[in-house]
């Protein structure tokens, strides 16, 4: 199973992780990634950012990515939360957490989901800098990271 949420509000990491294992004893490993807004990007100080998305397609794309992870690895549960709207440095942007019987599958699937999310889910970041707002350019390194899961 997988749960996907796109929301403006923050999330409580501890509570979200607890929700993946609560009441079950088959989970042997829970691997998680939390993405945050950092101050520096491409040599500029970031004062804040706005995350835009494509309502409807975003959820479908994330669910599709989770489905692919389930078909590649033996997983027990997946949770993906991605924030949209206005964020400032230090704010959480994204949580991906994967539960499985063994750590290897959880680690790999978590990385796979993040790599695919960064290149396939319709989110766009616009940063506020001292020089004014700018749209973040997609990075070729993200495509390379996603490409290693092919085949």
């Amino acid at each position, binding site marked *: 199973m997988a749960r996907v949420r796109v929301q403006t509000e923050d999330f409580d990491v501890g509570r979200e992780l607890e929700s993946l294992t609560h009441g079950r004893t088959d989970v042997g490993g829970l691997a998680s990634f939390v*993405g945050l807004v950092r101050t520096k990007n491409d040599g500029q100080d970031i004062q804040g950012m706005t*995350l*835009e*998305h*494509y309502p*409807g*397609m975003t959820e*479908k*794309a994330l669910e599709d990515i989770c489905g692919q992870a389930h078909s590649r690895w033996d997983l027990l549960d997946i949770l993906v939360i*991605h924030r949209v709207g206005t964020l400032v440095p230090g704010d959480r*942007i*994204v949580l991906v957490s994967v539960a499985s019987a063994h750590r290897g599958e959880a680690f790999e699937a978590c990385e796979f989901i*993040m790599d695919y*999310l*960064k*290149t*396939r*889910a*319709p*989110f*766009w*970041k*616009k940063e506020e800098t001292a020089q004014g707002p700018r*749209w*973040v*350019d*997609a990075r070729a390194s993200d495509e390379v990271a996603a490409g290693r899961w092919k085949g």
Partner: protein
Amino acid sequence: MVTVLYFASLRERLGCSREQLPLPAATATVSSLVDVLRNRDGGWTEAFAPGKSWRVAVNQQMADLATPVKPGDEVAFFPPVTGG
């Protein structure tokens, strides 16, 4: 008619987030729709010039120039994604 959506920098550049467009032909594709947009004045020609890096989705699934488009479809154009 199809619904056409524009997101992020492309939306700002074109000054348009959503419109209804008649299909250029009975058997239309993303490519034939792009030809229509490219023939508009203003920033449209430049935004959809060959070699520009934009992405397209048809009915909320990633698509490409060859993807068929039929009446009632939702077609979205946007820059490469930058979430996460």
